[in-house]
Structures are given as structure tokens and as C-alpha cells.
């Protein structure tokens, strides 16, 4: 099953259309990146690490709150100080909350499946998982008091408007539906998206021969 490395997540916030800065990438098979964008109606989100596009990414939108959530997996991202870019191509009043963390044991060819967006019940989202997969969801809240009954992967800071933060939770796969849930005291929970992180494919792959 994929597992997040012990190294703490790197989290940050910024205002504007884009952000490009040197950040410390952990040593891991892949990097899981997540962010939430307030005022994200029309523009879509893109991100790179060391000028490389993510192996796979997914994003969803919740129009009632004008929030866009994004997640991406960068397989083989170089560790150490690297330029991390995230941005969009539209408004100048965007505010963001971002974070990333290393992940091992992940399928490096097809990092995730089961992508789901559901705007109707944003504090809980059901992900179809594989038994050796890991359900991972990205949540956007409006105050720094989001909690989860699952395992917290990372929690990004509240943006400069005090409006949104990104909170990522995970739960082991079961070979069926897994629910990821968030709780709050005062926040307005806004949008969850989720995926099934796939377990690393077995090494080799050729036919097995049995001696006679």
C-alpha cells in the first residue's frame, strides 16, 4: 500500500495568479501535491516541480463556494531544493493554500484512479479503492480547525483572506468504497475531491516458469 514518508509536509500560501519558488522536495518515489484555490471559477490549475509536469493530476470545482481543489502526483521528482510552480491564468485576486509530501510504494506508471468529485456532501466523500490502494482526499475549509477521522496527510495554512485552507486525509483501501470524512467546529467545509492511490506494480512482469 502506498505510504506517505515521515518527513513533514511543506505547506504555504500565496496570493495572485502564479507562484514559483524554491522549495525542499523530500526523497521519495513520488511527491503528492495538493492545493485549493479560492475564486477558482473559470481558470484551471497547473503545477510543475523542477519544470516537470505531474505524472497525473485531477481537479474539481464547487461553484457555490467558488473553490477549485487540485491534487497531483509527481513520480521521480528530484529531491532537495527545486523550483515548485503552481498557478492559473486568470484573476488577479486568487488566494491559495498549498502543500506537498513524499509518498512511497506507489504505482509509478499509473499513480491513481477512482477520481471523484461530489459537490453535494463536501464533508464526506466516497472513493472506490483497491485492496492495496490508499484513499486520499483533498478538502478546502475556511478556518484552521478542520479535523478528520481518517489519517491527516497534510494541512496547509489559511490564505491571506482568512478564507480557505487545504486539508488532505487518507484511509486504507478495502477493495471497495472507502469514506473520507472531515469535521469542523466553525469552518465552512467547501469541496472534497479524492482518488485511490495505486500500489506499486510488482517488479518484473515476465511469465513465471516452473521447473520440471
Amino acid at each position, binding site marked *: 500500500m502506498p505510504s506517505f514518508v515521515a518527513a513533514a509536509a511543506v505547506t504555504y500560501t500565496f496570493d495572485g495568479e502564479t507562484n514559483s519558488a524554491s522549495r525542499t522536495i523530500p526523497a521519495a518515489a513520488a511527491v503528492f501535491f495538493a492545493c485549493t484555490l479560492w475564486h477558482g471559477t473559470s481558470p484551471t490549475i497547473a503545477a510543475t516541480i523542477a519544470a516537470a509536469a505531474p505524472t497525473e493530476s485531477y481537479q474539481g470545482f464547487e461553484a457555490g463556494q467558488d473553490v477549485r481543489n487540485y491534487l497531483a502526483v509527481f513520480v521521480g521528482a528530484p529531491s532537495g531544493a527545486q523550483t515548485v510552480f503552481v498557478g492559473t491564468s486568470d484573476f488577479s485576486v486568487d488566494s491559495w493554500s498549498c502543500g506537498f509530501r513524499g509518498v512511497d510504494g506507489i504505482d509509478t506508471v499509473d499513480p491513481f484512479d477512482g477520481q471523484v468529485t461530489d459537490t453535494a456532501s463536501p464533508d464526506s466523500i466516497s472513493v*472506490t479503492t483497491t485492496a492495496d490502494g490508499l484513499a486520499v482526499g483533498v478538502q478546502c475549509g475556511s478556518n484552521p480547525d478542520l479535523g478528520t477521522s481518517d489519517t491527516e496527510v497534510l494541512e496547509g495554512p489559511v490564505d491571506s483572506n482568512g478564507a480557505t485552507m487545504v486539508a488532505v486525509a487518507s484511509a486504507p483501501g478495502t477493495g471497495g468504497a472507502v469514506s473520507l470524512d472531515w469535521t469542523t467546529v466553525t469552518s465552512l467545509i467547501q469541496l472534497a475531491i479524492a482518488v485511490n492511490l495505486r500500489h506499486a506494480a510488482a517488479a518484473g512482469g515476465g511469465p513465471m516458469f516452473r521447473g520440471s
Partner: protein
Amino acid sequence: MAEIVMERFTRCPTGNPADEVVFEVVVADDDARRWDSPIARTTTLARLFTRGSLVALGARKRDILITTARGALRTIRLAARLDASHRDVDLTPLGITLTFPMVRGVPLPFDFYGGPAQGVAEPTPATLFDTYKVRARA
């Protein structure tokens, strides 16, 4: 036309941004103005369509639903199954109106669900979402 990209998928095995393939699920209204235009207006939700490369879906079937009401009464109004071809669906018969400019915190009169295909047949409009959710995965 005001467009909202409800879902966006990308794949890039090489890491070279020039090789990235993108697939999007988009809804649009029947007005010429952009979604963020400050002009007050009421429009009608007109289309749900897909664009880009189906390769980004990884050859996995996918259900796209427009629903109304919530909780036990949540009802499928529009269902589209994505597999090996693009979809372009007329939403005007649903009669869902949108009011602009949008106000943060005011939910839209519909919800969106996108997820792996459930069941062997395309979901049926005018049925309950809860019924759909318990269908076996195809």
C-alpha cells in the same frame, strides 16, 4: 458562453509538459458573457460536454451526474457515461437557471458528481442518487 471546468484530468508519463494530455468535463450556460462578468443576469444551464484527450481517463469508464435536491431526496437529472467517446449533452430541458454575479456561499441550484462508473448500464435520470450509489461497479 460562460464555461466552468468541473473536472480536469492530466497525464504526462515523461514529465515533459509538451507531452501532457488533458481531459475536461465542462458545463456552460446560454449566455455570451464569461462566468466572471459582473453584469447582473439570469441564464440557463445549456450544455455539458467533454473535450481533450480520452487517454487522460486511462480507458476507465466514468459517470457524470447533474443532480438536484440533497440527502435522501437527491435526484439524478442528467447522467452521462464516458468510455471511449466524447459527450455533448443538452441541459436546457432541465430548466436550471443561474443567477449572476455569483455570490460566494450561495449554492448553485444543482450539484455535480463525477466518479468511476457504477453498474453495467448508464445511470437513469429521475432516479435517486442513493440508489445509484449502491449499484455494483461495472
